[in-house]
């Protein structure tokens, strides 16, 4: 509710009268704010009624017991194991810092753990950026340009359908018939004369490029969904008002649509960052052993029954993930704004 910023033409009494009227209206508005604004301002009525503690406890307790048993307990156990000593068949409870020492010394890219971490981080950054750039127009189209709700949902489900085929199957289909040396892409490039089967223009078979493109393909809907969800809720009247006030498309987008969509972008980025950082199944199927990530690195340690070492590597990865997510959440207050 900013004050009027119209230029004041000093002596013009009619103008001043109009200004007074506006001020009066604003004062009235403040006394009787329209309902939508009140709803926005206090969307989560904190401590609305006293004595709700028991009700909150009753709603929350089952969920937290479930999370405690299936999430916290295994995690705590993993942290414990990461401080224990490895044996040939597993581990014994001899406290040691050795597992972390191996990871932190040397603390540079000569250490396979950190070079894998950095590669996964780049993959993640690329995936987040690409999913945002390519996914936003999709969400925008569905939410803003498709009028009927039924059509929105039908088109959305059409985009979602490939996700109900196991990612393993999709990865195989990606690795061989599409990106393989004899796959559709290279065949197409050969047909139009800029590549050849034996000497492909793009190194796609089992390559890092293929892995990164596949990540975009596999995860882009995790970005589209939350953005679509929030775009659908953007107040259409606000957009209309912005246009009526002379805002062009870009300005309307930047100052009306984007701020209201930001939480969706943040959530989508968190999803994709976390999922791609710790990815190993896709890397394995598409890279066919030629590619590695921090996920495959840890997996190899676990398969080699180096449980404490694998646990320490995984704990550090979670720390990195938490730092990353913490950084991303700086862009929006999730609890209040989604």
């Amino acid at each position, binding site marked *: 509710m900013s004050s009027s910023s119209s230029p004041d033409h000093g002596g013009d009494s009619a103008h001043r009268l109009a200004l007074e009227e506006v001020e009066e209206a604003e004062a009235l508005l403040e006394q009787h704010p329209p309902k939508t604004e009140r709803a926005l301002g206090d969307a989560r009525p904190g401590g609305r009624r006293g004595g709700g503690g028991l009700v909150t406890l009753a709603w*929350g307790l089952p969920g937290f017991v479930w999370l405690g048993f299936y999430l916290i307990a295994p995690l705590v156990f*993993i942290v414990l194991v990461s401080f224990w000593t490895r044996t040939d068949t597993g581990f014994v409870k001899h406290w040691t810092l050795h597992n972390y020492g191996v990871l932190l010394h040397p603390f540079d890219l000569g250490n396979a753990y950190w070079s894998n971490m950095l590669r996964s981080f780049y993959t993640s950054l690329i995936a987040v950026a690409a999913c945002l750039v390519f996914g936003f*127009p999709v969400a925008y189209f569905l939410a803003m340009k498709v009028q009927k709700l039924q059509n929105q949902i039908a088109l959305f489900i059409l985009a979602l359908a490939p*996700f109900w*085929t196991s*990612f393993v199957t999709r990865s195989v289909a990606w690795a061989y018939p599409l990106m393989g040396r004899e796959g559709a892409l290279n065949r197409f490039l050969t047909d139009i004369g800029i590549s050849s089967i034996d000497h492909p223009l793009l190194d796609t078979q089992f390559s890092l490029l293929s892995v990164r493109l596949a990540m975009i393909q596999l995860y882009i809907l995790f970005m589209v969904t939350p953005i679509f969800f929030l775009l659908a809720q953007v107040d259409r009247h606000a957009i209309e008002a912005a246009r009526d006030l002379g805002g062009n498309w870009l300005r309307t987008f930047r100052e009306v649509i984007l701020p209201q969509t930001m939480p969706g972008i943040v959530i989508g980025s968190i999803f994709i960052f976390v999922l791609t950082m710790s990815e190993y*199944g896709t890397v394995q199927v598409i890279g066919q052993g030629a590619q590695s990530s921090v996920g495959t690195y*840890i997996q190899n340690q676990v398969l080699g029954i180096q449980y404490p070492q694998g646990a320490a590597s995984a704990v550090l*990865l979670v720390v990195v993930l938490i730092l990353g997510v913490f950084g991303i959440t700086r862009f929006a207050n999730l609890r209040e704004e989604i």
Partner: protein
Amino acid sequence: MTAIAPSVERTQDVVIRRKVKRRPDYAKWGLATYFVVFLIFLYAPMILMGILSFQGYYGGVTFPFRGPVSLNWWRSIFESQVGNVFTHADEISAAGQRSLWLSLAAGGVTAFFAFTLSMAFRRRFRGDSFAFYVIMLALMTPGFLLGLGTQLFWKAIGLQTDMWASALGANSVWGIPFGFLVMLAVWNRYDDHIEEAARDLGANQVTTFREVTLPLVWTGIFGCVLFGFTLTWNDFDRTVLLVLDNTLPLEIVGLIQASAIRPDLYALGTATTLVTLVLILGALAVVTIRLRLRGRRVERVEEELGLVGAIDAEAAAAARAE
């Protein structure tokens, strides 16, 4: 809240009418074209998979297409023997059924906990920020870490892991933060005054919850089920260390590792896409019909209160009194 605004001509009430000039929405058609390209990008592997699933006996996992065109690989996901070739049909169908039940159960469990947790978060409580990050921690925990942790922890406390006791838990924990965020978004847009109105009209807490709250957030809950189902249906990392019998993704990875990928995998992939598409559209239709039926809410309230016609009669009496 009960104060009535005095009727004052407000500047924003003045309606300016002018002819709207319609011009073609180029942006819409541009974006529609982009959407089609996007769908092609998403479906490219599926389409290639579909094509290659119709190969003949010598068919491989990649091009060139080895004919003749046949339904052999499609038959081999349903029949245990096609011609003189033994197929993986039995294991695949068993794994598929296990996956389906597990995913449905995980969808239900996820929705239940996402919903109840989100109900707790509608009010502020002591330590709620910490609790919020505990739920988000479920999102940030890599799948194989949770799978490994569960396996080692259960072993340490002397329990045997299996599909229903542990894999269901590990998978639902994964779905809960997704569903929880969906529900938070729903509650942030939810008008609490509606519930107050229901209570003012004499509904008790249970009735309010059943007749007002639930129907309004039904779509959000459906979203939670979808998330739980989809994540579990696709899961490999969390499940692999915890089950004795394969789920579908485990079965497929097993076939790949045994270098036994053949076009039957493609037939299976194409089939699952089609089947799940039908399933979800069916579920959507059911929800739509339910919502349609709920459209006649006033009559239902009347019926339930045993007041059929009473409200009309009262209105008529009031009119007569005037």
